[in-house]
C-alpha cells in the first residue's frame, strides 16, 4: 500500500511546487518522493505517473467545470483534438504524468540497488 502513499505524496508535493516554481517542478516532486520512499523502479514510475496524472487531470477537470468549457473547446480545436474537452484533459494529464513518471524512476534508480 506504499504506492498509494507515494501517489498522494507526489500529487501533493507537485501541487505545492506548482504554486511557486515552473511547471517542470512536477519532475522534481516526483523525483524527491521516489528518493525518499523506497520502491522498485516500476512502482516508482507508476506512482509518479499516477500522482501527476491525477493532479493535472483533476485540476484541469475542475477548472473546466468552473469555466463552463469555454476555453477547453477552443484549445481542443486549436491543438487539434477535435474540440473535445475530455481529450484535452487526458492529454494534459498524460503529458504531466510522463514527465513525473520518468523523474520518479530516476529517483528510484538513484536510491534503489538490487
Amino acid at each position, binding site marked *: 500500500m506504499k504506492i498509494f502513499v507515494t501517489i498522494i505524496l507526489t500529487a501533493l508535493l507537485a*501541487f505545492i511546487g*506548482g*504554486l511557486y516554481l*515552473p*511547471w*517542470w517542478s*512536477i*519532475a522534481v516532486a516526483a*523525483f524527491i518522493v521516489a528518493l525518499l520512499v523506497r520502491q522498485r*523502479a516500476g512502482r516508482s514510475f507508476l506512482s509518479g505517473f499516477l500522482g501527476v496524472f491525477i493532479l*493535472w487531470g483533476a*485540476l*484541469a477537470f475542475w*477548472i*473546466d467545470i*468552473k*469555466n*463552463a468549457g*469555454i*476555453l*477547453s*473547446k*477552443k*484549445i481542443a*480545436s*486549436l491543438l487539434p483534438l477535435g*474540440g473535445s474537452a475530455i481529450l484535452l484533459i487526458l*492529454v*494534459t494529464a498524460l*503529458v*504531466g504524468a*510522463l*514527465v513525473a513518471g*520518468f*523523474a520518479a*524512476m*530516476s529517483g528510484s*534508480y*538513484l*536510491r*534503489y*540497488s*538490487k
Partner: protein
Amino acid sequence: MRVIPFVVSTVITVALVFALNKKWGPVPPLGKFLSPQHGFWQNAEPADADFNANLSFPGLKGNAEVYFDERLVPHVFADNDDDAYFIQGYLHAKFRLFQMEIQTKAAEGRVSEIAGARGINYDRTQRRLGMRFAAENALKEVEKDPVTKVMFDAYTNGVNAYINTLTEGSTPLEYKLMDFKPEKWTNLRTALLLKMMAQMLSSGTESDIDYTNTKAIFTEDEMKVIYPQVLDSLVPIIPKGTVFDSAGIVPVKPVTADSLYFSRQIAMVKNEWDKQDENNGSNNWVVAGSKTQSGVPILCNDPHLELSLPSIWYEMQITTPASTTYGVSLPGSPFIIIGFNDDIAWGVTNAQRDVKDYYEIKFKDRSKKEYWYNGKWEPTVPRFEEIKVKDGSTVYDTVAYTAFGPVMYDESFPNDTTRQRNLAVRWVAHDPSNEGKTFYELNRAKNYDDYEEAIKTFECPGQNFVFASRTGDIAIRQQGKFPARWDRQGIYVMPGEDSSYRWQGFIPQQENPHAKNPERGFLESANQRPVDSSYPYFIPGSYIVTRGITIEHKLSAMNSITPADMMKLQYDYFNTTAEEFLPILFKYVKENELNGDEKKYLDIIKSWNLNASPESKGQTVYQNWSDSVIAGIWFDDIKRISPQAPWPDRQTTIEMLKRDSALKYIDNINTPQVETLYDVVTTALKKATVSLKIKEAEGKLEWAKFKAPGIYHISDKAKSALLPFARTNLNVGGSGNIINAVTQSHGPSWRMIVQLSSPTEAYGVYPAGQSGNPGSKYYDDFVDTWVKGEYYTLWMMKKSEATDKKVKWMMKFEKQ
C-alpha cells in the same frame, strides 16, 4: 544506485522537460502550456468570476473606485485626472494587454520578434514608412505639453502597475501560445498606437503610385474623367451652396510641372502589402432638435474598421470631480475617443484625404549617402534599423532620410525586383503633433466653443468630428493638417530633385470644411468628399460617395426622430448603388439570349427589394453581375496593361455610362469585333451565372451565406491560424457601400446613438466583448446583440448609484 538505468531514465526526463518547454513550429511549449497551474488552463476564467479587488499602488495620488456593471463595463470614479488615467491604463492592461502589445509591436515593425522570419518584410515596410520616427516626433510634442505629459505618464504607470502583478499563470493566453513575455509600457508605445491609427486611416488614401502606373495607359484628360475628383452624384459633407472663403494660401505650380511631372511616364514598383484596407470608412450624423421627437439633438456614429476579437475598442466611463465622460477608448491610449459627457457628444469618421506623397530620389551612388537636390549633392540622414527575429538572428536595414522624408522604396526594398526607383515618402503623420490633447479636451468640452478649441490641434489622421450639445448646437468639421496643393499636385509620384515640388504650406485650420446649425437640421459624413468643387483647394483622397447619398436621402425625409429610428438607420441595408446601376443593366441585357438559369437569376434580381439583407438572394446576384460588368468594361483597358492600375470607382463607371452608353472603353480591345454595352451586360450575366450556380449548389446564394462575414482574432491576419478564437458565418448583410457596412470581416466597429436629453439617453454596441481573454465569457458576449442590430443602454452612472443592482463588482484603488 543503479548507474545505467539512472542515467537513461534521467536523460529521458530531462529531454522530455526540454522538449515540452520549447515551441515547435506553431505548437506551443506543451508542458508549460498544458500545466493547469501555469498554462492556458489558468486563463479559463470561472464563469462566475469575481472581479472585486482591493488594490494599492504607490503611483496613485488618492483613492478611487471602479464599479463594473453586468456587461463588465467599468465606471471609474477617481479623485483627480492622474489617477483616472492611471486606472484606465491598469484596466486596459488587465483586460486587453495582448492587443496593446501586438498592435504597438506591429506599428513599430517588430512583428518578427514574435512571428519569426515571415514578419521581416512587414517589419521593413513599417520601418521604411518611418512609423517609429513618426511616433518619436509625436512624443516630443506630447511631452512638451504639461497636461498631456502628465496624463501619458499616469496611463503608462497604470499599465505597468498591472504588468508588474502578472505571474506566469495570469499572463494572457496569447503570450503562452506564441511563447513570449509582456514588455513594459512606455509613452512611446502610446504614441505608436496612435500612429497605428494614423497609418490605418491616412496611409493608403493616396493613389500616387497606382495613378503613376495608370498614366502609362491614359492621357491626362482621360485620367480626369476615369478617376474624377468630384463625382456628379456627390453629396458633400458640407451642404452644397455653402460659400467658402477664398484660399488663405495659394500654392504655385512649379514651372517644370508640365515636362517633369504631368507628362513623365514611368512604371513604379509597389509591394502588394502596402495598400491599407480600402473599406476603412465610417458613418456619423447628427440631427438637431427641430427634427427629433424630444426636441434635443441626437448624435450617431459607427466607425467602420477591420473587426477583430478582441475589439479595438474598450467601453468605459471615467469620472473625476471635474468631468465625467462615457464612450469607447483605445487600449494603448488614455482618454475616451468616441463618446459623450453631460454637456456634449462627439463622433468621428475618416476624412479619406490624401496626406501622403511620393518623390523620386536620385542617389549619388549605392551608399545612399547623398542625393541630388536643388542642383547639388545633399547628404541624407541614415537611420539604422535592427530587426530582431524570434530565432535569435538580426536583420539590418538602413533607411535614408531626405528633405521629403524617408526613402521607403529603393533597390534594396523590395529586394525581389531589379528596378531601381528610389521613392521618398512625405506623410503628414511624420510631423510633430499631439492628437491625445484633442481627446483630453473633448472629454471635458462643455459647448461648441470648447469643441472647436479641442479639435483645432488635431492633425493626423484627418477626421470628420461631428458634434452635438445639450444646448442644441450641432456641428461638423473635417479636421486635420492638410497640404495646400496646386492643381493635381501629388496625384502622381513627383520629382524629388527640386524643392519646388515640396508642399508649400498647409490649408489654414479655420478653412477646414465645417458647418454649424444648418437650416435643414442635420449634418452627416460618410467618407465622401467633404465639399463640392467650389472649395478653393485641390483635395485628392479616396472618397466613398454612396453611403453619404443614402444617409442624406433618409435623414432629409425623416422627422420627429427617436433613438429607435436612428438604430434602424444604422442597421439599414438599402443599396443605393444598385438602385442607380440596375436600370442600366436591365435596359441593356439581351433577355432573348439568356438560357433558363440566366433568366432565373435575372428574375431574382428583378423582384429584389434593393436591400442587402442577410437572406437576400438579389444582392448576391447583383454583386456578381455588376462586378462582372465592371470587369467587362475595364479589364482589357486597365488590368491587362498594368496590373497595378486601380479599378475606376464603381460610381464613376455608372456616371460615365449614364452620360455615354457608347463609351469607348466598353469595347474589348483584344477582340476584332466592336462590343456594345448590350454585349458586355449580357455576357456579364452569363459569366456571373456560372459562379452563381456553383454557390447555389453549395447553398450559398443568400447574401450572408455568400459573403460569410466573420470576426477574427486580432493577431490572425490570415484569418486561418486562430479560427477557434473567431466568430465566423455571422448572419449579417450589408456591404461597404451600404450604411450597415459589413463586409467579410470589416464593418461598424462601434455603433453609438446619443440623445442629449436630461438625463442623456445613449445606446451602443460593438461586436466583441469587454474581456480580451478567449477563456472569458465576456470575450464575445456582445457579438450576437450586434449581429441582430440591437443595442445596450449606455449607463452614465452617478457615484450615488453604487448600490444599484446593475453594479456587480467593485475595485478599490488606494494610494500606497
